[in-house]
């Protein structure tokens, strides 16, 4: 897994405000194809906001997001999906009254332009949804709904995949299993950005992490190095531990 040198995504001095609150305050980082990048930081540090801006849910108030070298700040989500960006949600958002199969069919029909779509049944099988394929999404448990979010994203053949707390709520066996799947996706050339609070999981799957605090990056590198950084310790544990 050797990350390509040319980034597929570069975020430069990104700013996002909600009224008087500055959620992103000049955030900069990049992600390369085949790389798993972790976004970590305390609650409210801007991780999910960053993902929401990159996936087109919010337009940025300043700075630039470039995908494949083209600026994508403020471009509508469905257009970004067609260019090759997709995501999962912290609280999974399937189409509740539709069956699992129908959920994925929407993404297969509308989510990508050109090229053969991935096989629906193989995808469901791979993410352990085959046995519930004809049940409404509302009947699934939360781990299954997360997998459905992921399968719906994968059905659009993304080249950049944003995973917002995919691992939260999974049991240890499921964690190992999904970690392997994520690594395999990256090995296939996909660029994956993971927002996560489980540090063991982050260490296991990421090549690199960005530590965020108050809307900007304070560290970039291996997680093992991050935990030795005084500024990171201060943000996570409080000032008295940093010395």
């Amino acid at each position, binding site marked *: 897994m050797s990350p390509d040198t040319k980034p597929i995504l570069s975020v430069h001095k990104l700013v996002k405000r909600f009224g008087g609150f500055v959620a992103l305050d000049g955030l900069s980082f990049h992600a390369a194809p085949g790389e798993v990048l972790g976004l970590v930081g305390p609650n409210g540090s801007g991780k999910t906001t960053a993902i929401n801006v990159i996936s087109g849910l919010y337009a940025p108030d300043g700075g630039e997001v470039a995908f494949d070298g083209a600026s994508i700040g403020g471009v509508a989500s469905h257009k970004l999906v067609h260019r090759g960006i997709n995501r999962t949600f912290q609280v999974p958002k399937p189409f509740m009254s539709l069956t699992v199969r*129908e959920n994925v069919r929407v*993404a297969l029909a509308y*989510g990508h332009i050109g090229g053969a779509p991935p096989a629906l049944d193989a995808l469901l099988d791979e993410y352990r949804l085959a046995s519930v394929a004809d049940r409404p999404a509302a009947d699934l448990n939360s781990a299954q709904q997360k997998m459905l979010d992921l399968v719906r994203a994968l059905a659009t053949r993304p080249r950049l995949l944003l995973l917002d707390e995919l691992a939260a709520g999974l049991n240890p066996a499921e964690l190992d299993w999904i970690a392997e799947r994520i690594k395999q996706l990256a090995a296939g050339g996909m660029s994956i950005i993971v927002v996560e609070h489980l540090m063991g999981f982050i260490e296991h799957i990421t090549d690199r992490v960005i530590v965020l605090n108050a809307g900007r990056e304070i560290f970039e590198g291996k997680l093992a190095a991050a935990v030795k950084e005084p500024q990171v310790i201060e943000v996570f544990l409080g000032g008295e531990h940093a010395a």
Partner: protein
Amino acid sequence: MPNAVKHVLFILVPLIAVFAVLPGLYQNHLLLFNFVTFLILAQGVNIIYGFTGYLPFGYVGFFGAGAYGFAVLVMHYQSPALVAVLAAGLVGVLLGLLLTPLLRLSGAYFAIANLAASLAVLHLVANPALEGITKGPYGVSLTGTFNPSHAYYAALVVLTLTVGGVVFLKNSSFGLALQAVREDSVSASMAGVNVVKMRIAAWLASALVAGLAGGIYAWYVSVFYPDNVFSGEFSIFAIVFALFGGVATISGPIIGVLILYGVYNLIGFTTPQYFQLIYGLLIMGLVLFLPAGLVSLATRRGWHVP
């Protein structure tokens, strides 16, 4: 056999066949025409509410605008009835386009804004200052085009197209994407669906249906006042019929119209007090026990209802 073919053969064809032969067997043609009109309107509500979740409380606005579109063409341009009916559909679509900003609202806010919009159109049409164009509050008389049996068969054609449209929605990825937008618009956009475009398409389709129905209604009755064709009863009945049967299905709104409008005509005129009592109880029971309509009796058991 693909599902779409089954739906056409076992729902659309029998429905149209029955209403095509009934005028020969049953004398009250106005009643049959009203049934067809409500079948069209209930399916129009189904398209916008069932598939996208917008509850059109002012749905009659399109119907009344269509009726007056028909009247203006016949009165001022001596158009043939069929041309005027097409123009009525166009008027519905244009009003729909004008009202697309309402789609920014959701839930009760949309319903109220849509109701207000339909009242605004009523008062525009009924304004005495526009007497030269719409005859204002004094009503129109279109004796030149009067031909109830042609109007009835035109209504059947529109019903065919409308139910056919719902069959398409029920069996296509377009209809599936509309339902995805209704369920979660953010997720739908992450599935690559252009949410705004889909909502507008469904909105204009249901406006077209009501506009055509309004034009044919004007053709059929030929004498009417603004209060007749903008009566809130059209919206309420169409919504209640669709909900009673069950929306986002093909058969639900049909079942709803046949049962509820049937009950209305059995006892609504002879014993209106019992009718209102029974109607009230039916609707309360529906909301309390079957919020997803009669068809949910079957879907709850895991049976598929087209």
